[in-house]
Protein backbone atom coordinates (compact mmCIF):
# COMPACT_ATOMS: atom_id res chain seq x y z
CA UNK A 1 0.00 0.00 0.00
CA UNK A 2 1.41 3.38 -0.98
CA UNK A 3 0.37 6.32 1.15
CA UNK A 4 0.09 9.68 -0.62
CA UNK A 5 0.16 12.69 1.65
CA UNK A 6 -2.00 15.82 1.45
CA UNK A 7 -0.97 19.37 0.61
CA UNK A 8 1.09 21.82 2.70
CA UNK A 9 -0.07 22.18 6.30
CA UNK A 10 -2.49 19.28 6.01
CA UNK A 11 0.51 17.02 5.57
CA UNK A 12 1.84 18.03 8.98
CA UNK A 13 -1.52 17.83 10.73
CA UNK A 14 -2.21 14.35 9.41
CA UNK A 15 1.17 12.75 10.10
CA UNK A 16 -0.05 11.22 13.33
CA UNK A 17 -3.16 9.59 11.86
CA UNK A 18 -1.20 8.35 8.84
CA UNK A 19 1.36 6.79 11.17
CA UNK A 20 -1.29 5.21 13.43
CA UNK A 21 -3.06 3.76 10.42
CA UNK A 22 0.14 2.52 8.83
CA UNK A 23 1.07 0.66 11.99
CA UNK A 24 -2.41 -0.86 12.24
CA UNK A 25 -2.20 -1.95 8.61
CA UNK A 26 1.29 -3.37 9.10
CA UNK A 27 0.08 -5.40 12.09
CA UNK A 28 -2.65 -6.79 9.86
CA UNK A 29 -0.02 -7.88 7.36
CA UNK A 30 -0.02 -5.04 4.85
CA UNK A 31 3.25 -3.53 3.67
CA UNK A 32 2.81 0.24 3.75
CA UNK A 33 5.17 2.70 2.10
CA UNK A 34 4.98 6.31 3.26
CA UNK A 35 7.04 8.70 1.21
CA UNK A 36 7.42 12.44 1.39
CA UNK A 37 6.83 13.99 -2.01
CA UNK A 38 9.48 16.09 -3.74
CA UNK A 39 10.23 19.19 -1.66
CA UNK A 40 7.92 18.11 1.18
CA UNK A 41 8.75 16.96 4.70
CA UNK A 42 12.04 15.05 4.82
CA UNK A 43 12.38 14.65 1.07
CA UNK A 44 15.07 16.34 -0.93
CA UNK A 45 14.50 19.49 -2.95
CA UNK A 46 12.63 22.64 -2.08
CA UNK A 47 8.87 23.03 -2.12
CA UNK A 48 9.08 25.69 -4.84
CA UNK A 49 11.09 23.35 -7.09
CA UNK A 50 8.37 20.70 -7.14
CA UNK A 51 5.65 20.36 -9.72
CA UNK A 52 2.35 18.49 -9.71
CA UNK A 53 3.80 16.21 -12.36
CA UNK A 54 6.89 15.45 -10.26
CA UNK A 55 4.59 14.42 -7.43
CA UNK A 56 2.65 12.04 -9.67
CA UNK A 57 6.02 10.59 -10.72
CA UNK A 58 7.03 10.18 -7.06
CA UNK A 59 3.86 8.19 -6.40
CA UNK A 60 4.43 6.02 -9.47
CA UNK A 61 8.04 5.36 -8.52
CA UNK A 62 6.98 4.42 -4.98
CA UNK A 63 4.29 2.10 -6.28
CA UNK A 64 6.65 0.33 -8.67
CA UNK A 65 9.29 -0.07 -5.99
CA UNK A 66 6.79 -1.45 -3.48
CA UNK A 67 5.26 -3.86 -5.95
CA UNK A 68 8.69 -5.11 -7.01
CA UNK A 69 9.86 -5.62 -3.45
CA UNK A 70 6.66 -6.87 -1.79
CA UNK A 71 4.49 -8.15 -4.62
CA UNK A 72 0.85 -7.20 -5.16
CA UNK A 73 -1.93 -6.44 -4.91
CA UNK A 74 -1.09 -2.77 -4.90
CA UNK A 75 -3.35 -0.25 -3.17
CA UNK A 76 -3.00 3.52 -3.56
CA UNK A 77 -4.00 5.20 -0.31
CA UNK A 78 -4.46 8.96 -0.59
CA UNK A 79 -5.57 11.63 1.87
CA UNK A 80 -7.17 14.89 0.63
CA UNK A 81 -5.11 16.07 -2.39
CA UNK A 82 -3.14 12.83 -1.99
CA UNK A 83 -6.26 11.17 -3.36
CA UNK A 84 -5.95 13.25 -6.53
CA UNK A 85 -2.31 12.24 -6.95
CA UNK A 86 -3.07 8.62 -6.12
CA UNK A 87 -5.87 8.39 -8.62
CA UNK A 88 -3.80 10.10 -11.32
CA UNK A 89 -0.84 7.76 -10.72
CA UNK A 90 -3.07 4.68 -10.59
CA UNK A 91 -4.75 5.54 -13.87
CA UNK A 92 -1.34 5.52 -15.56
CA UNK A 93 -0.77 1.94 -14.49
CA UNK A 94 -3.87 0.81 -16.33
CA UNK A 95 -7.43 -0.16 -15.39
CA UNK A 96 -8.51 -2.19 -12.36
CA UNK A 97 -6.40 -0.27 -9.86
CA UNK A 98 -7.33 -0.15 -6.17
CA UNK A 99 -7.79 3.16 -4.37
CA UNK A 100 -8.23 3.78 -0.68
CA UNK A 101 -9.34 7.38 -0.34
CA UNK A 102 -9.46 9.36 2.88
CA UNK A 103 -11.55 12.54 2.71
CA UNK A 104 -10.59 12.97 -0.94
CA UNK A 105 -10.42 16.38 -2.53
CA UNK A 106 -12.58 16.03 -5.64
CA UNK A 107 -11.56 19.31 -7.25
CA UNK A 108 -8.04 20.65 -6.83
CA UNK A 109 -9.19 24.13 -7.72
CA UNK A 110 -10.99 24.38 -4.39
CA UNK A 111 -7.84 23.46 -2.50
CA UNK A 112 -5.77 26.04 -4.36
CA UNK A 113 -8.41 28.68 -3.69
CA UNK A 114 -8.43 27.86 -0.01
CA UNK A 115 -4.65 27.86 0.18
CA UNK A 116 -4.37 31.28 -1.48
CA UNK A 117 -6.94 32.56 0.98
CA UNK A 118 -4.40 32.04 3.76
CA UNK A 119 -2.59 35.11 2.46
CA UNK A 120 -5.83 37.08 2.39
CA UNK A 121 -6.55 36.03 5.98
CA UNK A 122 -3.04 36.94 7.08
CA UNK A 123 -3.31 40.35 5.41
CA UNK A 124 -6.82 40.90 6.76
CA UNK A 125 -5.58 42.57 9.93
CA UNK A 126 -3.20 45.07 8.35
CA UNK A 127 -3.65 46.01 4.73
CA UNK A 128 -7.05 44.34 4.38
CA UNK A 129 -7.74 41.07 2.55
CA UNK A 130 -9.38 42.57 -0.51
CA UNK A 131 -7.99 41.67 -3.92
CA UNK A 132 -5.20 39.55 -2.45
CA UNK A 133 -6.29 36.24 -3.95
CA UNK A 134 -6.82 37.78 -7.40
CA UNK A 135 -3.29 39.23 -7.29
CA UNK A 136 -1.77 35.87 -6.30
CA UNK A 137 -3.61 34.15 -9.13
CA UNK A 138 -2.38 36.75 -11.61
CA UNK A 139 1.22 36.23 -10.40
CA UNK A 140 0.93 32.44 -10.79
CA UNK A 141 -0.55 32.72 -14.25
CA UNK A 142 2.32 35.03 -15.20
CA UNK A 143 4.73 32.26 -14.14
CA UNK A 144 5.86 33.72 -10.81
CA UNK A 145 5.92 31.78 -7.53
CA UNK A 146 3.89 33.21 -4.64
CA UNK A 147 4.56 33.12 -0.90
CA UNK A 148 1.71 31.84 1.23
CA UNK A 149 1.85 30.79 4.87
CA UNK A 150 5.56 30.02 4.80
CA UNK A 151 5.37 28.08 1.53
CA UNK A 152 6.78 29.32 -1.77
CA UNK A 153 4.25 27.95 -4.20
CA UNK A 154 5.47 27.39 -7.76
CA UNK A 155 3.12 27.82 -10.73
CA UNK A 156 3.94 24.21 -11.74
CA UNK A 157 2.38 22.96 -8.51
CA UNK A 158 -0.46 25.48 -8.35
CA UNK A 159 -1.65 25.05 -11.91
CA UNK A 160 -1.37 21.25 -11.78
CA UNK A 161 -3.36 21.23 -8.56
CA UNK A 162 -5.94 23.56 -10.05
CA UNK A 163 -6.52 21.22 -12.99
CA UNK A 164 -6.64 18.02 -10.94
CA UNK A 165 -10.08 16.40 -10.59
CA UNK A 166 -11.22 13.07 -9.29
CA UNK A 167 -13.12 11.04 -11.79
CA UNK A 168 -11.75 12.46 -15.03
CA UNK A 169 -8.98 9.95 -15.61
CA UNK A 170 -9.43 6.30 -16.50
CA UNK A 171 -11.68 4.90 -13.74
CA UNK A 172 -10.10 2.62 -11.15
CA UNK A 173 -11.34 -0.91 -10.50
CA UNK A 174 -12.08 -0.74 -6.79
CA UNK A 175 -12.42 2.21 -4.47
CA UNK A 176 -12.90 2.45 -0.73
CA UNK A 177 -14.05 6.02 -0.02
CA UNK A 178 -13.83 7.04 3.63
CA UNK A 179 -14.90 10.38 5.03
CA UNK A 180 -14.76 11.69 8.57
CA UNK A 181 -17.41 14.00 9.97
CA UNK A 182 -18.29 15.43 13.36
CA UNK A 183 -21.93 15.67 12.34
CA UNK A 184 -24.43 13.07 13.42
CA UNK A 185 -25.69 10.71 10.72
CA UNK A 186 -23.43 12.39 8.18
CA UNK A 187 -23.53 11.48 4.52
CA UNK A 188 -20.81 11.84 1.90
CA UNK A 189 -20.08 15.43 0.96
CA UNK A 190 -22.11 16.54 -2.07
CA UNK A 191 -19.03 16.79 -4.32
CA UNK A 192 -18.03 13.26 -3.31
CA UNK A 193 -21.45 11.78 -3.93
CA UNK A 194 -21.37 12.93 -7.54
CA UNK A 195 -17.98 11.33 -8.25
CA UNK A 196 -19.13 8.12 -6.56
CA UNK A 197 -22.19 8.09 -8.78
CA UNK A 198 -20.11 8.65 -11.93
CA UNK A 199 -17.73 5.86 -11.03
CA UNK A 200 -20.57 3.47 -10.21
CA UNK A 201 -22.00 4.18 -13.65
CA UNK A 202 -18.63 3.07 -15.05
CA UNK A 203 -18.72 -0.21 -13.12
CA UNK A 204 -16.23 0.79 -10.45
CA UNK A 205 -16.69 -1.29 -7.31
CA UNK A 206 -17.19 1.19 -4.50
CA UNK A 207 -17.33 1.10 -0.73
CA UNK A 208 -18.23 4.56 0.59
CA UNK A 209 -18.43 5.14 4.34
CA UNK A 210 -18.60 8.09 6.72
CA UNK A 211 -17.16 7.64 10.20
CA UNK A 212 -17.52 9.95 13.15
CA UNK A 213 -14.51 12.03 14.14
CA UNK A 214 -12.75 15.38 13.90
CA UNK A 215 -11.26 16.76 10.68
CA UNK A 216 -7.79 15.75 11.87
CA UNK A 217 -6.07 16.99 8.68
CA UNK A 218 -6.98 20.57 9.54
CA UNK A 219 -7.91 20.93 13.22
CA UNK A 220 -5.94 23.44 15.25
CA UNK A 221 -4.54 20.75 17.56
CA UNK A 222 -3.34 17.37 16.33
CA UNK A 223 -6.34 15.10 16.81
CA UNK A 224 -7.21 11.44 16.33
CA UNK A 225 -10.17 9.94 14.53
CA UNK A 226 -10.12 6.48 16.16
CA UNK A 227 -13.17 5.21 14.27
CA UNK A 228 -11.31 5.62 10.99
CA UNK A 229 -8.66 3.03 11.89
CA UNK A 230 -10.83 -0.13 11.95
CA UNK A 231 -12.95 1.19 9.07
CA UNK A 232 -9.80 1.52 6.98
CA UNK A 233 -8.60 -1.97 7.89
CA UNK A 234 -11.95 -3.41 6.82
CA UNK A 235 -11.79 -1.38 3.61
CA UNK A 236 -8.28 -2.61 2.85
CA UNK A 237 -9.50 -6.20 3.23
CA UNK A 238 -12.36 -5.59 0.80
CA UNK A 239 -10.04 -3.98 -1.74
CA UNK A 240 -7.59 -6.87 -1.67
CA UNK A 241 -9.90 -9.79 -0.90
CA UNK A 242 -10.26 -11.31 -4.32
CA UNK A 243 -6.59 -11.11 -5.10
CA UNK A 244 -5.50 -12.94 -1.97
CA UNK A 245 -7.89 -15.87 -2.39
Amino acid at each position, binding site marked *: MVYVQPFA*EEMNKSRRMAALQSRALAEAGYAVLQVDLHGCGDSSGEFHEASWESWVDDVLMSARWLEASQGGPLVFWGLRTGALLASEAASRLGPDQRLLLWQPVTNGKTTL*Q*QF*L*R*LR*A*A*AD*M*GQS*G*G*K*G*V*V*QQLRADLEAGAPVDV*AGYRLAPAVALGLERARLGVTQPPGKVAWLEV*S*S*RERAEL*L*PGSASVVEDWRAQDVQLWPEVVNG*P*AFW*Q*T*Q*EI*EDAPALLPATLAAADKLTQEATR
Partner: protein
Amino acid sequence: MDVHKEVLRVLDEVLSLGGRSASFTRATPLLGSIAELDSMAVVTLLTTLEEQLGIVVDDDLEGATFATVGSLVDFVNEQLSA
Protein backbone atom coordinates in the same frame (compact mmCIF):
# COMPACT_ATOMS: atom_id res chain seq x y z
CA MET B 1 -30.86 24.26 9.73
CA ASP B 2 -29.97 25.99 13.01
CA VAL B 3 -27.16 28.16 11.68
CA HIS B 4 -26.08 29.42 15.10
CA LYS B 5 -25.71 25.86 16.35
CA GLU B 6 -23.90 24.69 13.21
CA VAL B 7 -21.46 27.61 13.41
CA LEU B 8 -20.67 26.80 17.04
CA ARG B 9 -20.14 23.14 16.21
CA VAL B 10 -17.74 24.03 13.40
CA LEU B 11 -15.92 26.59 15.59
CA ASP B 12 -15.51 24.02 18.32
CA GLU B 13 -14.16 21.39 15.94
CA VAL B 14 -11.85 23.60 13.89
CA LEU B 15 -10.36 25.44 16.86
CA SER B 16 -10.20 22.33 19.05
CA LEU B 17 -12.17 24.12 21.79
CA GLY B 18 -13.22 20.91 23.51
CA GLY B 19 -16.79 22.04 24.16
CA ARG B 20 -15.96 25.62 25.20
CA SER B 21 -18.25 26.91 22.46
CA ALA B 22 -21.26 25.76 24.51
CA SER B 23 -20.97 28.95 26.55
CA PHE B 24 -20.68 31.23 23.49
CA THR B 25 -23.42 33.79 22.79
CA ARG B 26 -23.88 36.11 19.82
CA ALA B 27 -21.83 38.74 21.65
CA THR B 28 -18.82 36.47 22.26
CA PRO B 29 -15.81 38.12 20.59
CA LEU B 30 -13.78 35.91 18.23
CA LEU B 31 -10.95 37.48 16.20
CA GLY B 32 -8.33 38.88 18.53
CA SER B 33 -9.97 37.33 21.60
CA ILE B 34 -9.72 33.61 20.93
CA ALA B 35 -6.06 32.74 20.68
CA GLU B 36 -6.74 29.69 18.52
CA LEU B 37 -8.27 31.85 15.76
CA ASP B 38 -5.16 32.68 13.72
CA SER B 39 -5.14 33.23 9.97
CA MET B 40 -4.78 29.51 9.28
CA ALA B 41 -7.82 28.84 11.45
CA VAL B 42 -9.84 31.59 9.75
CA VAL B 43 -9.36 29.85 6.41
CA THR B 44 -10.07 26.41 7.83
CA LEU B 45 -13.21 27.80 9.41
CA LEU B 46 -14.41 29.19 6.08
CA THR B 47 -13.49 26.00 4.24
CA THR B 48 -15.37 23.84 6.70
CA LEU B 49 -18.43 26.08 6.64
CA GLU B 50 -18.38 25.97 2.84
CA GLU B 51 -18.05 22.20 2.71
CA GLN B 52 -20.56 21.37 5.41
CA LEU B 53 -23.19 24.05 4.91
CA GLY B 54 -22.93 24.21 1.14
CA ILE B 55 -22.09 27.91 0.88
CA VAL B 56 -19.50 29.59 -1.31
CA VAL B 57 -17.78 32.66 0.11
CA ASP B 58 -15.80 35.06 -2.03
CA ASP B 59 -12.15 35.78 -1.42
CA ASP B 60 -12.38 39.34 -0.18
CA LEU B 61 -12.07 38.54 3.49
CA GLU B 62 -12.98 41.18 6.04
CA GLY B 63 -12.00 41.11 9.69
CA ALA B 64 -15.44 42.38 10.70
CA THR B 65 -16.97 39.05 9.65
CA PHE B 66 -15.03 37.28 12.36
CA ALA B 67 -15.47 39.91 15.09
CA THR B 68 -18.10 38.02 17.09
CA VAL B 69 -20.13 34.83 16.98
CA GLY B 70 -23.10 36.97 15.92
CA SER B 71 -21.28 38.59 13.00
CA LEU B 72 -20.12 35.20 11.76
CA VAL B 73 -23.61 33.70 12.03
CA ASP B 74 -25.07 36.69 10.17
CA PHE B 75 -22.43 36.29 7.47
CA VAL B 76 -23.29 32.59 7.01
CA ASN B 77 -27.00 33.43 6.89
CA GLU B 78 -26.32 36.03 4.20
CA GLN B 79 -24.37 33.50 2.14
CA LEU B 80 -27.11 30.90 2.55
CA SER B 81 -29.72 33.25 1.18
CA ALA B 82 -27.45 34.64 -1.55
